[in-house]
């Protein structure tokens, strides 16, 4: 098992390096520059700025220097748009916020989604099943940039129960709406995946065997059907977690939560190369890590998988 994990990490390193080089190249050749504002800068200032940030050097050298700084000092460089801050500082400030509500939304999606899916599958073809399917279809097609203003309208403006935005160190009233807005569609997807795989599992021969042993039905579901029917859900968890982090773009804008989501868009508009690279690499690492966790869970659940 340890060998399997080490091997996967060894494969992940070149993946991330490739990601760095590719995104760096794409940005470099995209039109525009961090210093093209509404008023063109005088050429000598532009030359000075480019020299300061090393943009006057040949392209391969720029890439090499960037990778070198990350590998040796874990330094993602200075931000171009936030003049006095480094990318490391910006991420260190925003990422814990995103991670907090992202993880909570992740947990809520799984708990609520899996429960709804299992209930629907067990009560298949009854009104309960139809209701659950109806709700999940609705929730799945409702994007979070629609969900967020609706929540604000209802809970802040009409009912006055929750603050309309802000973070305040992550106190729970500030967490509720971001979590709901972020988790809804993932919750719905998980519910639908769970439902169909649970239905499939309940039709397996081994479920009939378990029932023929006289186990009560809820025992049959918990002991025999849960594990196999969660496998498709687990393979969906990697993309889900990454989707929650990138989905925080909308959340940060609507609820002023101050996570890193806002930087995905702003950094790109401002051509803040180091910040774009920072958030891209962060997302890349998260993807790799979560896919590794999913693979380990798979091996742990299904004894037939060899690693």
């Amino acid at each position, binding site marked *: 098992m340890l060998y399997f994990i080490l091997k996967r990490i060894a494969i992940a390193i070149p993946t991330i390096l490739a990601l760095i080089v590719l995104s760096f190249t794409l940005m470099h050749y995209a039109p525009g520059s961090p210093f093209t504002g509404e008023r063109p800068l005088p050429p000598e200032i532009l030359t000075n700025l480019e020299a300061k940030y090393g943009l006057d050097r040949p392209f391969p050298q720029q890439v090499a220097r960037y990778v070198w700084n990350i590998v040796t000092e874990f330094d993602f460089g200075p931000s171009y748009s936030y003049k006095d801050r480094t990318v490391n500082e910006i991420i260190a400030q925003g990422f814990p916020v995103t991670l907090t509500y992202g993880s909570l939304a992740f947990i809520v999606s799984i708990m609520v989604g899996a429960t709804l899916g299992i209930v629907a599958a067990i009560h*298949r*073809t009854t009104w309960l099943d139809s209701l659950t399917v109806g709700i999940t279809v609705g929730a799945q097609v409702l994007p979070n940039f629609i969900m967020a203003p609706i929540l604000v309208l209802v809970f802040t403006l009409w009912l006055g129960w929750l603050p309309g935005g802000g973070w305040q160190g992550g106190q729970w009233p500030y967490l509720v709406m971001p979590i709901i807005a972020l988790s809804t569609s993932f919750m719905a997807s998980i519910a639908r995946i769970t439902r169909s795989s649970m239905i499939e599992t309940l039709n*397996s*021969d*081994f479920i*009939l*065997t*378990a*029932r*023929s*042993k*006289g*186990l*009560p*039905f809820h*025992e049959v579901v918990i*002991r*025999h059907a849960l*594990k*196999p029917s969660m496998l498709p859900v687990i393979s969906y968890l990697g993309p889900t977690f990454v989707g929650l982090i990138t989905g925080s773009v909308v959340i940060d804008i609507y609820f002023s939560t101050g996570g890193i989501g806002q930087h995905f868009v702003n950094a790109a508009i401002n051509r803040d190369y180091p910040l774009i690279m920072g958030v891209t690499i962060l997302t890349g690492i998260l993807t790799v890590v979560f896919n590794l966790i999913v693979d380990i869970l798979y091996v742990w*659940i*299904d*004894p*037939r998988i060899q690693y």
Partner: protein
Amino acid sequence: MHSTPRTGTEEPLLSICDLRVTFGTPEGQVVAVDGASLDIHPGEVLAVVGESGSGKSQTALAVTGLLARNGTSEGSILWKGGEILGLPEHQLARLRSEEIAMVFQNPMTCLNPYLRISTQMIEGMTMNRKMTRTQARSACIDMLETVQIADAANRIDRYPHEFSGGMLQRIMIAMSLLRRPRLLIADEPTTALDVTVQMQIVQLLKHIRRKYGTAIMLITHDLGLVASISDRISIMYSGQIMESGLAENVFSNPRHPYTRALLDAIPRIDQNDGELRDIAGEPPDPASRTSGCPFHLRCGYRIASCIENRPDTLGSREHAHACHLSNET
């Protein structure tokens, strides 16, 4: 213990009378079992023989209350004289756990691939009996040794995919016997297995009947398999019992044309003319039952009343059949 068939006066263990199993499908009603009757006495081996789709498996599932959700059963199923058709689920579950065990066709898919053999064997015991895990575990190892799984103490913690099909079927049988059932329903227990392994499973079933006195309802389409083990045989076709009786009576003096056709279809090594005989035509579609005798479409001895009326079952427990032709002669 029960080497001779019991056909005496004692009460039957299981008595199915005029059972009808139907399934509601989007295309309409499908009749899987159409008025079948049979009974099994303690310690007896009854073979229920028929083609696929003849309703033999659904009969078994109806007994244990395990029909698919869209299935309904009518008629009467008596267990030790008490009606069990329509019992609430928790009582049926107790019946399955304590009295009637089942073994299914495909051992490869009938064991949960995600759980160890030990987990799957022990769970049924610790739940319903006051038994510790340690006691249950050693009982399971003993039972695995009874069904000739070598090195059972170590192998019990393996997963199903680490065993061959024949071994898995023996494990399934061991698992079903743990609760010392009065009746074991074996639904095509050898169909998914190699021919050489099939005989081992039949030997095992014989051994079990001798050792524990368990009655066995052996569901199969293989008459050859049945010959060496069964006390009595019921021939099923299109949801109905065509002929039933003591094994030697059915084999030596088959009365129903369908039984004769089945016996003719068994390849015989001493009459090798290079041809395999089959029964012309197809079994009737369970979704559209015909009137009269269900076999009339394929029967070479058809007379007018076969098409119009369903034949009555005549005869005794030793030998009975449902055919107009032999009723008249």
